[in-house]
């Protein structure tokens, strides 16, 4: 039972980091129909920026988090303006390849600046652990769950109540109608990228606290795909629940089955969902079939 509890907590905390990355993915997909392969690299950027801000410059953690998020947002805005805007309306293959190219650039830059070796710094998440019955749970991991949930809830509120959020939903619904109502599409795309980067940066900050700072972080980006397909490509709620399910599945298979099966289970789920219910748990039911 104690193992079960431990696996649940670690699964949920990983799952919430997936959810943060996935939420960014969903925001961009909803607004601009771009599938974003750079999501993992935005996470990577987040972990290295927080390391830079706290570990290298020595900022207090609150300021460090702020600087990290702002820098990540600046990078995302630059990406949107310089690379994605000229490609609006291009075929899917171009969109996929352009974000793959971006991902390669970001990874190369991070490696060039900070080197390929893992780095470490004094974690800003509280050390130590909480004992619940027979199980020992790390405080950092426990704490990351409510933080992520708060960020995701804020994203949800943004979509429901702010002008930009509503504009984004309008564009997702019908781009032409939104345009004719005077909604500025470039602005909304910019906001979408900024939000995605902010959410990924927070995910990266938590990763830095829970797992550590290393180039391997980028590989988490691929886990976004099972999460968003399971949850539905255009649903923030789906990202949260999909993230939790995939995180838990990974933790349980890793803990009880082993053999590295936890690495492949999410993709098995992905294929299964695509076969049975391609729009996922909460996605809109329009998928073009042939």
């Amino acid at each position, binding site marked *: 039972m104690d193992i079960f509890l431990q696996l649940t907590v670690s699964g949920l905390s990983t799952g919430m980091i997936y959810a943060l990355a996935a939420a960014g993915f969903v925001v961009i997909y909803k607004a601009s129909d771009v*599938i974003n392969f750079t999501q993992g690299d935005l996470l990577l950027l987040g972990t290295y920026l927080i390391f830079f801000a706290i570990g290298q410059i020595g900022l207090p953690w609150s300021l460090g988090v702020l600087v990290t998020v702002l820098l990540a947002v600046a990078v995302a805005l630059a990406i949107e303006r310089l*690379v994605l805007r*000229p*490609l609006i309306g*291009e075929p*899917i*293959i*171009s969109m*996929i*390849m*352009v974000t*793959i*190219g*971006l*991902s*390669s*650039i*970001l*990874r*190369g*830059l991070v*490696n*060039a600046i900070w080197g*390929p070796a893992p780095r470490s710094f004094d974690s800003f998440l509280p050390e130590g652990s909480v004992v619940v019955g027979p199980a020992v749970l790390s405080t950092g991991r426990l704490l990351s769950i409510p933080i992520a949930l708060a960020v995701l809830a804020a994203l949800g509120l943004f979509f429901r109540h702010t002008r930009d959020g509503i504009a984004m939903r309008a564009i997702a619904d019908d781009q032409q109608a939104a345009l004719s109502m005077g909604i500025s599409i470039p602005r909304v795309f910019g906001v979408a990228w900024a939000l995605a980067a902010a959410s990924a940066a927070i995910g990266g900050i938590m990763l830095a606290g829970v797992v550590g700072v290393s180039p391997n972080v980028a590989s988490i980006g*691929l886990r976004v*795909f*099972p999460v968003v*397909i399971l949850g539905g490509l255009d649903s923030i709620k789906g990202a949260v629940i999909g993230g939790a399910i995939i995180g838990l599945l990974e933790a349980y298979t890793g803990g009880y089955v082993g*053999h*590295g*099966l936890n*690495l*492949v289970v999410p*993709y*098995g789920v*992905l*294929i299964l969902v*695509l*076969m049975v219910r*391609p729009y996922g748990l909460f996605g809109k039911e329009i*998928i*073009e*079939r*042939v």
Partner: protein
Amino acid sequence: MSLECGVFHTRYESDMGLRPRPAQRIRLAAFAVFVLVFPFLAGPYWLDLANQIAIATVGAIGLNILVGYTGQISLGQGAFMAIGAYSAGLLTLNLGLPWGVSIALACVITAVAGSFFGLPSLRLKGLYLAIATLAAQEIVEWAMTHWTAVTGGTEAIVVPAPRLFGVRLNSTFAFYWFGVAMAAGTALFAANLFRTRMGRAFVAVRDQDIAASVIGVNLFRTKLMAFATSSFFVGLAGAMIAYYRTIITWERFTLDTSIVYLAMIIVGGLGSIRGSFFGAALITLLPALIANAGRALQDTAPVVAGLLPYAQQAVFGVVIILFLIFEPKGLSKLWGNVKDYFHVWPFAYRRG
């Protein structure tokens, strides 16, 4: 074939020829002479690069048949190459088949596997298909590293060196001829494929699948055939790697491989055979050139030289993005522009 300004066919043979104009034949002959002379002039380093380009050309043409001509996005290139490489190696090791037979069987096995993974394409389009093939890639990667009984896990499989008439074929010089023959054969097959009913059906599915099915193209069969044909050559490329390196490791067939091949056909030109070759050459040479630059800078600017391995990754991304923004039709189109400029020179002529 497209109609060109200033070209008048007077016989059916010339109308149907793959390269009907004298200029085209001269260019082809010049290229052939270059290919024949090259191995006698180049050292082993450049020969090795040429061999890699030959293998990459086979793989890129294979991928282009699927992505560029049929419009089915695949991120599973690495997985298909792995299936080709492992089955070519394991057939020889476990069943004692001669290497030629193993390679041929490996191509067929990959074609079958490719059509299996292509099954989702019947229901899924565009980005859903891309994500499905991504999952296939991850699953095959996992199988390579964890299905120890068959693939040897993370340990390398050593394949016996191929021999032809007593000559070891995996030396750079000997393999060059094999590689060029395979690449030329693949290119010729693909060039002719798109003059057949099946090949035209591929293109029709890419351009407008619903219209294609209305005019009587069987989407199910066509897409499966596209996956099978494409995978056949991708498997061939994998098998060639296995017998060229005589060692099979899973690291050669990761998602990065899939991305590199996609980059080749993007940079070279989607839906273009010569583009596949151009892209294969550029993407293979790029890291080599950067590495050379690094060695040259080692003494004068060691800091820059130290950064170059990472810059390599960034440059790869920059090249993809620059092509997508400024020349989405790739090197093939750039080359076409040059040719068109001289086509009816000194008169201005721009094709479509």
